[in-house]
Each structure stands twice: as C-alpha cells, then as structure tokens.
C-alpha cells in the first residue's frame, strides 16, 4: 500500500493538517443535521480525506466498507433511451460518483441517477428514516445544464439526501449551487504543515530524516500534500538512508514540459513548433489534462523569461486557456499559445539584440 493511503487519517480527530476545519465539521455532524457541503480547494490539499472522515463520523466504520461497481443506467431522454455506464463507489449509507465522467451526457446523470438514489431512503435500525449521502466529485467539470439540474435535485430531495460536492475551483460552480451548500474552503497545506506530516510518517516508518530533507520535499511538492508523500516514498525507494543532498526525482511529465519549454526558448520557427506539437501530443496521450500542461508550460517559460514580457505572455496563456475550455481540440489552443509565445519572444529578441 502506498504511504499516501496508508497514512491517510481516517477520523476527524487524527487530522494533522486542517485540524481546525476537522473539529468544526465534527461539531456540525454530531450536533445537528448537516447541510449540503461543498469542499473546494487545490488538488492535494486533503478534501477527499476530510470527506471520508466526515462520512466515518456520520456512519461509523461501515462507511469504509465500500464496493466498486460499474453500473449501467438506463436513462429515458425524451425520444430515446440512453445507456450510461458509470463507476460508483458505495457503502450502505453513501454513494460516490464522478458525474463528469459521463461527458456531455452528465446532465442525465445528475437528473436521473441522483434522483433515483435520493428516492431510495435507507431506514435505520430504529425505524427512523435516515438520509443517504451522495458524494459528487469534480463538480466544477459539470456542464452548466447539469449544474442547473443539480440545483433542482438538491431542493427536491433535501429531506432524504445530503450532497457532498467536491471540486478544485468554486468559481466554476454556479451561484445557485454554491448558495445551497455550506462552502468549506480547504487551503493547500503550508510547507511547515507538510514537513510536519512527513516527519510524522518518517517516525512511523522508523526513518532517519536528515535535517532539511523534509523541507526540500515540501518545496518541491508545490504545496500538495499528496505529492509530497508520494515524493517522500519515491525517495525512500530510491535511496535509504537519506542523504541531505539526495536529488528528489521530478515527475516525468513535468520534466518533459520543461524540455518543451527549453525547446521553445531555443528556436522560434514553424519547424520547431511542429516538433513541440509532437511532444504535446505525447503528453496529451498520457492523459495529462491540457489545462495542467498549459499551466505548467507557462510557469516553466516564465522562469526563463525577461520580466518585460511576463505580463503579455500571461495574458495570452489566460486567453488560450479560456478558449480551450470553449473548444474541443485542446491541441489547437495550446499550440496557438506556443506560436504566440514564439512570435512575442522572437520580436523581443530582435528588438534587444538586433
């Protein structure tokens, strides 16, 4: 088992990071009926861990007995019946799904599947009607229509069902949904917090941590706790006992992006653009989301860039990121950004060095 999972805190009390939020949530769940919840925050900050802990707090250990199912849902969409296949993760009291996996048919998922689940109310041992919890991941990736139908579902079945929504950015969730939920912002852990977690794990694993080593991992991890723990484990496999100068292996795709960035800086020509395109394809094929590629590429480029140009380059990156979300073919937009960068950078070089 990976350390990430092994040392994931199971209960709200054991939280090392965000312990204040955990205590609040505990109070909320134990003392009164809990409202719909919306967790948002950057990836690797502990949203999922918190959600699982909340579920455990609600239902006890039974929440951890989950089974994975690949269910096919028949949805009656007006003139035809759609078959939607979706992976669900469920225990007796909660169901977790990732509706955006259904792609552009996500609104049916929200409308029909959630409705159906919400209707089947569990009855607990005392004959009292309890409520089910639905965990929806990546709500920010839902289409606008789906989010609208989500709003309706929330209102209609609020008696029998609680929704826990989870997303990276609350700005992509509609106002209507946000206002119906208790919004819980989960910050990215600070580097000190990450160091604390790493030291905790190190103690559990009986590892000798040289001074400053955990801090270096924390810096490299980009304030993502998940990544920090993964890096930590990688280092452990790579070399133990640790040395203070031990290199921390970077993510291969990030390395690849920085290669692309240096390619771009080296030469600005259509030929080079074509080469870059090939590399971008390779990243895309490996399921690296285009937004992340663009973001990473921008930060790599900014590292090497004259301050004068940074503003303009950022502007274009934002512009093409937006366009990418409107369009379908991500490669067109990333490539357009690269081309624009090349064009700007070349003009700059000519202006400065003649």
């Amino acid at each position, binding site marked *: 088992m990976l350390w990430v*999972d092994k040392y994931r805190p199971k209960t709200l009390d054991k939280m090392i990071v965000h312990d204040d939020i955990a205590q609040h949530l505990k109070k909320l769940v134990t003392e009164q009926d809990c409202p719909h919840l919306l967790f948002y925050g950057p990836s690797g900050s502990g949203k*999922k861990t918190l959600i699982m802990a909340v579920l455990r707090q609600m239902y006890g250990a039974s929440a951890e007995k989950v089974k994975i199912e690949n269910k096919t849902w028949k949805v009656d969409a007006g003139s035809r019946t759609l078959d939607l296949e979706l992976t669900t993760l469920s225990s007796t009291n909660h169901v977790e799904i990732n509706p955006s996996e259904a792609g552009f048919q996500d609104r049916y998922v929200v409308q029909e599947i959630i409705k159906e689940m919400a209707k089947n109310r569990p009855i607990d041992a005392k004959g009292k009607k309890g409520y089910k919890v639905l965990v929806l991941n990546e709500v920010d990736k839902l289409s606008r229509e789906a989010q609208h139908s989500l709003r309706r579902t929330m209102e209609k079945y609020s008696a029998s069902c609680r929704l826990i929504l989870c997303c990276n950015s609350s700005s992509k969730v509609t106002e209507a949904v946000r206002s119906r939920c208790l919004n819980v912002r989960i910050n990215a852990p600070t580097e000190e917090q990450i160091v604390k977690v790493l030291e905790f794990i190190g103690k559990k694993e009986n590892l000798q941590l040289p001074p400053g080593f955990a801090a270096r991992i924390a810096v490299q991890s980009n304030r993502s706790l998940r990544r920090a723990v993964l890096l930590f484990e990688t280092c452990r496999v790579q070399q133990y006992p640790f040395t203070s100068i031990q290199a921390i292996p970077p993510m291969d795709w990030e390395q690849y992006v920085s290669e692309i960035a240096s390619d771009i800086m080296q030469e600005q020509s259509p030929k080079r653009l074509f080469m870059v395109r090939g590399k971008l*394809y390779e990243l895309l*094929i490996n*399921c690296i989301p285009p937004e992340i590629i663009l973001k990473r590429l921008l930060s790599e480029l900014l590292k090497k860039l004259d301050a004068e140009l940074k503003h303009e380059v950022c502007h274009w990156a934002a512009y093409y990121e937006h366009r990418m979300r409107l369009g379908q073919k991500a490669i067109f937009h990333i490539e357009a950004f690269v081309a624009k960068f090349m*064009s700007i950078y070349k003009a700059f070089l000519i202006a400065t060095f003649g």
Partner: protein
Amino acid sequence: MGKRNVIVLSSSEEDENGGGGDGSSNSGNGVRSRSTNRISSRLNPGPSVTTSKPKKRARRRISESNSHPDSWNVELGSFDALCEDFYDGFQEFRKVAGSGPKDKSELWVDKYRPQSLLELAVHKKKVEEVNMWLKERLIDSKDKLHKHALVITGQAGVGKSATIHVIASHLGASLCEWKTPTPTLWQEHMHNLSSGVHYMSKLDEFENFVERIRKYPLLPFNTIGKSMKPSMLLIDDLPLINGKQALGRLRKCLYTLVGSVQIPTIILITECARVDSSKNSARDWEDLLSSLVNAGACKMSFNPITTNSVKKTLSKICKEERCSVTVEQIDQIARVSGGDIRHAITSLQYFCLTPSQLLSFNTIHSNDKADEFRTSDDGFALSFGRDETLSLFHALGKFLHNKRETVNIAGFGQDLLLLKEKFARLPVKMDAPEKVLYQANVQASPVADFLHENVLDFLSDEAVDDAWTVASYLCDADNLATFHGSLWSRTTNNQEVDSISHLAAASVAVRGVLFGNSHPTQSRWHAIRSPKLWQAEQLLRRNKNEMVRQRNEAYRELISSNISVMATEYKPMLRWLGSRAVEAPLVYMEGLQDCQIDKDTFDDTKMDDVDDDIEDW
C-alpha cells in the same frame, strides 16, 4: 419524299413545343406522339421496308437503357408486344426523319452511339487491348484458358459499355447482359404483397442469376438457321450494396462467378466514388475489385476521355447535325465535361437545341428577346458542365499551397475599403474557398484537422508570426464548431444552427490559413499527412479507459482520486517505482510506437461499428 418529311417534322416539332395545339390532348406523352408519327409515316408505304438489322439494334438499345438504373422502361418482357410495335414505328420514323437535318426526337447520345471501332472515342490502345482479350477467348478458345473474366473500371461516361458493345458486334458475338431488376418502391411492395408476390432483394436476385449462369451454361438461342455465334456475358450494373455483410455476399458471389465461368465475362465498375476517398463506399469498391483480381479476373481501367477526342467527336456530330457551333464553344464543352463523353454530347445537344428552339419561338415576339439570347449566348458556359468534384487532397493542396497572383490586377474592393499594408493580400488563384470546400464535400472539423496537421510545412522558416496567425484562426474555427453545443442545443432547429456554425468554422479555418500564410515557402512537393490528432485522441481514450480499469481493479486504494490526479501524480510515481532502471520519459515513446499499428485496427473497428448500425436498421 419532301412532303413526308414535312409532316413528320411538324409533328415532332409540335410535341417538343409542348403540344402546339393541334387538338391532340396528350401529345406531350412520348409514346403517344411517336405512334402518331408512325401512323403518319405508315400512310406512305414506301420506306417501311424494315430490315431486321435496325430492329435488333433497337433491341439492344433498350437493353442498354435497361442497364441504367433509373430508366423508365425496364420491364421488357411485359411490354414486349407494345415495344415491338412502338419500335417498328419508331424505326421507320427514324429512317425518315433522320434524313432531315434536325432530328430532335432522339438523344444524340443514342443516335451517335459508336457503331464501329473507329468511332469510339476511347483511346485506341485500350480498345485494342480489350479487343485482343476478347478475341483470345472467343475465337481461339480451343486452348483452355481458365481466366474468363475481365473487370473494367473507369469514371462514368468514359465509354466502358460502348466499347464492349462495339467490340462484341465487331467480333460477331452475341452479348448477354445481366438485366438489373427495377428498384421496388414501397407502394409497389405493398401492392405486390397483397397479390402474393414476395419481395426479393436485388442482391438475392443477382446471386440467383450468378448461380444460374454457373450451373447452366448459356444456351445457344440462335442456333436455328444461323451459325453458332460465340456469346459473352456483360455485367454492367452490380447491385447496390449497403453494409459489410452485403459486400461480403456480393464479393463471394462474384468470386465464384469469376472462378467458374466458362464464357468470357465482363464486369463493369463505375468509379463514382473514387474522388471522395473518405467515404466507405469507395473503399468497398476497391475491396471488391481487389478480390476480383485475386480470383483471377483481368483488370483494365479506362481513363477519362481526352479533351481532344471529345472535341473530335463533338465536331463530327456538329457537322452531321449541321448546327453552327463555334470551335471555341466545342472546346469549352469538351473541357468542362471532365472526360465524360456522354455528358459532353448531351451538353452539346442541349446547347444546340436551346437557341434555335427558342429563336423560332421568338420570331413572333419583338427582337428585344433576341438580344437576350445574344447575352445568354455569351455566357453559355454557365448553363452546363458537370459540377466539378474535388478530392479532399486536391482541395487541401489548394489551400496549403496558397497560390496567388503576382500582381493585384483586378484591385477589387480597393476603393471600398483601404486595407493596411499588413492585412492586404494578393488575390488567390482559385475559386472562393467556400466553393472549393463545397466541391470537396468535407466537414469543418476534418478540414481543420488536416490543415492543422499540415500547414506548418508550408510556412517559411522565418514566419513564426504567420504560424501564430494561422493557429489562432484554427482556434477560432474549433470554437465556432463547438459553439452550438453550449448555446443553442435546446433550440428546435439546432440541426440548422449546427450546419451553419460548421460552415462558418470551415470557412474561418480555410480563410485563416490562406490569410495567415503570407510568406509561403517555395512550392515543392509535400506529402499531406493525415491528422495525428485522430490517433492521439484514440490513444487518449484508450489510455483513459485503461487507467479507469486499473484504478478499479489493481489499486483499490486509489479509488478516490480522479483521472487527472492519477495521470499527473500516481502514474509517474508508480512508473518510477516499477521501473527504476529505465529512464522514465521512455514510456511516452512506447505509446507513440503503438500508434501506427493501432490506427489500422481502429479504422477497421470503427467501420465495423458503423456497418453494424446500418445492418440493425
């Protein structure tokens, strides 16, 4: 004689002018009016000495028109008696009227059907090739040649059937044709059902026919009284196939036919879909063709007829018809025909017909209409000509090579809006991009994909700015094509909106490429690649599924994380942990090498899916 001519001409004139008003109410009906002609010529017993030869020719003609799928008189058997009558009269009429200068009662295509080898417009070598092949089989069939099938391919109207017919008559062989059954309409089908006739698919009928041909060799019908004539079999019109299963049946059927047939058999395949290589039908035909060749059939392909020989034929017809068509006009007709002689002749007839016809009509009217004719005469090129179709690659070539005039001659629009230096472009040397797109008959998104894949090769090495301009226009095109989904998906007629936004997207993509590429490279040969984007998308989908599967099966503990986290964080780590010895980025290369193999299998499976759907319907 002269008098008779007058009578006939007036009656034919009448029915072409839409029944001039001599009281015969249904003179618009072709059969009826022609039988009037017959009667009028039968009044004079003189020329009705009909020999059997023209009759036979007429028969053949009708069998030829049978081979055309939408001909109106297909069921020869049931109309036999009527037809005989009709053709008797028609033949006489033809003899009489044909002597006059203006016989408009017949299509020139039929009238000037080549009767001898010399008249054929097909290239002499090709004709000779076919001739030799047939001769070998027909005349010196003593030595048992086991290859008795010939496949002839070519565009429509390049004289495939004509060549076979002429050669057959030249060699004195009798030609048996597969007579395509009439397509059944739904109403007919209902009618037939009530009368107990069951529907039989045309493919079934064809299979039966082939079966019969194989089992029972052709009976020499004409042994009585005549010397035994060698016979040959012509399959002009293969049944329409739809879907993989039907293709398989047809292929199998033809395969056995080719393998076992004892008399020379000629199969004609019209390459109608060749230009549009993206359609599956073209692929199907190629498939069929190659399987025929594998079965041992000899393959010949007819090229489009050269402009010169079309011109020669046209001027010969003009001379015979005594119509005044200038050399330039003939030249133009020949050029726009695209090597389709049937079309060229029909165009010529139409062209010769209209002015004189209408002029005679106009004598009553004032001469201002005559002016109109002069003008329409000038612009005659517009009134006919095949709509050109372009292959996708041809169109892409036009866009990518971006040929422009060297000087701005026309200067159109210059006075209307003055463009800044950097926005001005020389006029392009082609039709409007939208027109080219229309001719190539492609969708917006493949066009954008192809342009995106290939355009960088055509930019000069220095022009990064151009690259950006092009890329930004392609982005716009992508966004336009996706536009409908978010905004108007609920509107009722989103089909229409879709198509408009797609048209706009294609137009933006193409014009963007044309505009952006302001410093094209020296034109040299470039291979046009098919978009790598397609492979990438396919691989992406596969990898994603794979990842979901892995997540569900192997790493149960990872279940809570989504795909992007998997891809960006767990996967690299696991990869690293799994294969520390190997340099990590190599894994990417692996993925790409799979591409090539995958692409083919992907295509096949995709086709399968599509076909299955059709079958289910």
